[in-house]
């Protein structure tokens, strides 16, 4: 058996897991581990400029590839800086391994330099965590961490490693386990066949059905099966913010996103449906509006890998706990066998349902209204231009706010894992580092970061990392010179009192990105939008920052009426509601 140090055991374990890249920032408590990293060349380390960005990069890497993202930070401030990124991953069920340095074992609990109780601080935002006691435990803990992070409902796992157990002078026997037994951890795998049969008989008999699919379908690699099922049934489908791309966004059966800023047709179809087939979605408050008014005529089938997600917010009629792929496979088999038995009455009910939906769709809730002579760019047009110029197949990350909703509504996604945003936690500062993680995973693919002048400044220091690693991301800065979503709420609910939602001393972004060694363009006229964007995208090997000045008065519509609104209650334009 090999005799190696604890630090080498950490890196060897990552190698054994097939980790190709980790994101991190060195410091005292992890110096032994960094030295072990230096003495090998299998695991690539990306030096970020802030630990929060390191976690978002690992997150973007994980969301785009499906493989866990790995982060290495030091103790104390290194660990606490990682917290926002861990919470972001936790809320969206993203597999992530965070290795944090800890002070030496004998100093734990003494308020020593750069000490923080990382396991304690991170406890509510991790799927699990380990505080290691001895070097011999490293390999098993890392193996367990990867198993836990990537199975069942995925999530982040923290491994806190005291410096002394990584000492280069203390050697241990190293053997990486092929499997680990965690007797108390048995994530659901197979959905109950009886429940699936019951669900499908309800699905087949429904007259006004809708499929409501979320990020779980993407995480569980069930998108092709979902698409097949939806097409065989011929039913309308809506995706959550996290589920965009699970079903092709340009397909006529797709009604767009649902929820607070969902399309008119998606929310109306949900409200008036008689059956909701919910798959890998969690009835989030940003979807349901007022729970007691949620979809009053609908029976609900809910498929989820996490039993705790079922009947948490909305009571469901048929719960199915299981792996989405297996459940969808069984559902497809049943539907394939039964579809030909559909009666004329059922066919005509479905046709009536579609004609009602087409009526809602005819409202064109996303239509952009502009005067021909007005040259000011609408934020929606910035998103549309990015879609057109990129050809629609790019990876798109976003930050949080109006631009995020515009991206979700105006950039259709035909494939899963192409749309990457912080849905659950809503983390500003996510977009750029997430895009970097994606670009690391796919060096030859087009990666776009749609952001705003507020969000981008929350992790703008990473422009330096982008230069170091030559990441040719295209940053679309939808610049309305305000914290747009905050301002929108202030317009709608606080009589336009814009308390601290303005940015009064914005930097010259073009000069700023040039100072970081990149290319910047400023676009102010709608006539320049596509030409300049084309020029930017033609610079294949450079990061280009497009500072696009947009109409600051624009709101995101539709918008749910709240409080006390149902899904059908929406603001459609300024002052116009359903």
């Amino acid at each position, binding site marked *: 058996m090999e005799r190696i140090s604890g630090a080498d055991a950490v890196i060897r374990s990552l190698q054994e897991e097939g980790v190709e890249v980790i994101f991190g920032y060195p410091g005292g408590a992890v110096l032994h581990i960094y030295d072990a990293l230096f003495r090998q060349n299998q695991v690539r380390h990306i030096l970020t400029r802030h630990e929060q960005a390191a976690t978002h990069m690992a997150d973007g890497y994980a969301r785009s590839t499906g493989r866990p993202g790995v982060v290495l930070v030091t103790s104390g401030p290194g660990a606490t800086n990682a917290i926002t990124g861990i919470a972001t991953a936790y809320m969206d069920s993203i597999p992530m391994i965070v290795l944090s340095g800890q002070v030496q074992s004998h100093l734990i609990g003494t308020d020593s330099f750069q000490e923080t109780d990382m*396991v*304690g601080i991170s*406890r*509510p935002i991790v*799927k*699990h*965590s380990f*505080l290691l006691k001895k070097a011999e435990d490293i390999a098993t803990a890392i193996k367990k961490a990867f198993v*836990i992070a990537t199975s069942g409902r995925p999530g982040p796992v923290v491994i806190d490693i005291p410096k002394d157990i990584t000492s280069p002078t203390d050697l241990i026997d190293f053997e990486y386990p092929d499997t680990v037994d*965690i*007797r*108390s*951890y048995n994530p659901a795998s197979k959905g109950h066949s009886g429940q699936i049969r019951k669900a499908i008989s309800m699905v087949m008999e429904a007259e006004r059905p809708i499929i409501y699919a979320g990020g779980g379908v993407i995480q569980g690699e069930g998108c092709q099966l979902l698409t097949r099922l939806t097409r065989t049934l011929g039913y309308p489908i809506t995706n959550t913010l996290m589920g965009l791309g699970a079903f092709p966004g340009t397909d006529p059966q797709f009604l767009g996103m649902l929820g607070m800023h969902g399309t008119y047709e998606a929310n109306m179809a949900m409200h008036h449906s008689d059956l909701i087939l919910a798959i890998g979605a969690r009835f989030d408050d940003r979807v349901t509006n007022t729970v007691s008014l949620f979809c009053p005529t609908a029976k609900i089938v809910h498929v989820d890998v*996490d*039993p*705790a997600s079922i*009947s*948490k917010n909305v*009571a469901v009629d048929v719960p199915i706990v299981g792996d989405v792929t297996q459940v969808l496979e069984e559902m497809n088999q049943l539907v394939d066998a039964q579809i030909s038995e559909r009666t004329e009455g059922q066919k005509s009910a479905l046709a009536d349902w579609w004609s009602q939906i087409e009526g809602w769709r005819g409202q064109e809730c996303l239509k952009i209204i502009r005067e021909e002579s007005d040259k000011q760019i609408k934020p929606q047009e910035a998103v549309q231009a990015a879609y057109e110029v990129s050809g629609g197949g790019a990876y798109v990350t976003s930050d949080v706010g109006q631009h995020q909703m515009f991206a979700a509504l105006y950039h259709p996604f035909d494939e899963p894992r192409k749309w990457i945003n912080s849905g659950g936690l809503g983390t500003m500062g996510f977009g750029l580092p997430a895009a970097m993680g994606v670009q690391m995973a796919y060096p030859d693919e087009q990666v776009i970061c749609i952001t705003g002048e507020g969000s981008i400044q929350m992790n703008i220091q990473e422009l330096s990392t982008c230069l170091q690693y030559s990441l040719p991301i295209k940053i679309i800065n939808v610049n309305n010179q305000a914290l747009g979503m905050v301002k929108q709420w202030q317009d709608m609910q606080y009589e336009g009192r814009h308390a601290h939602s303005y940015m009064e001393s914005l930097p010259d972004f073009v000069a700023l990105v040039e100072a970081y060694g990149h290319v910047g363009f400023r676009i102010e006229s709608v006539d320049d939008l596509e030409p300049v964007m084309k020029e930017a995208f033609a610079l294949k090997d450079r990061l280009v920052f497009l500072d696009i000045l947009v109409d600051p008065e624009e709101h995101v519509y539709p918008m749910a009426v709240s409080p006390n609104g149902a899904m059908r209650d929406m603001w459609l334009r300024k002052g116009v509601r359903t």
Partner: protein
Amino acid sequence: MRRILSVLLENEAGALSRVVGLFAQRNYNIETLTVAPTEDQTLSRLTLTTHGDDREIEQITKQLNKLIEVVKLVDLTEGSHVERELMLVKIRTSNSQRAEIKRTADIFRGQIVDVTGSTYTIQLTGTKDKLDAFIGALADAVIMEVVRSGSSGLSRGEKVLAI
């Protein structure tokens, strides 16, 4: 409705804090909590009492089950069960009250486990309601100190919580 949840937990550092943290994080209440290792030293058995309707208790048990260190759990109140709590009460006793207090303790099958010239310490086991009733019956006495263990319990009959 009051519920008694019995949980088998890995006997590891930090496991208890995850359980307690979950209750705080998700805004569930803990009325009593008692925990100790079982005959198998790798496992602790934790009993907690809480209040909630069926839906809240379903969420609590599901969320508890998601904790990696929770091996198994049962809601004892779903079936017939034995519940016991231990209480020690220290009472200031004047000569005129001593006989009465002893009689009351006897009625509740309590034992006087420490005696001084001016105090009795009474040990009582039973359900929460019984212990509450005993405190009520001591209304005229001066209670100096009360310590209660929190409820523990087991299902009746063949049903067990074990791995």
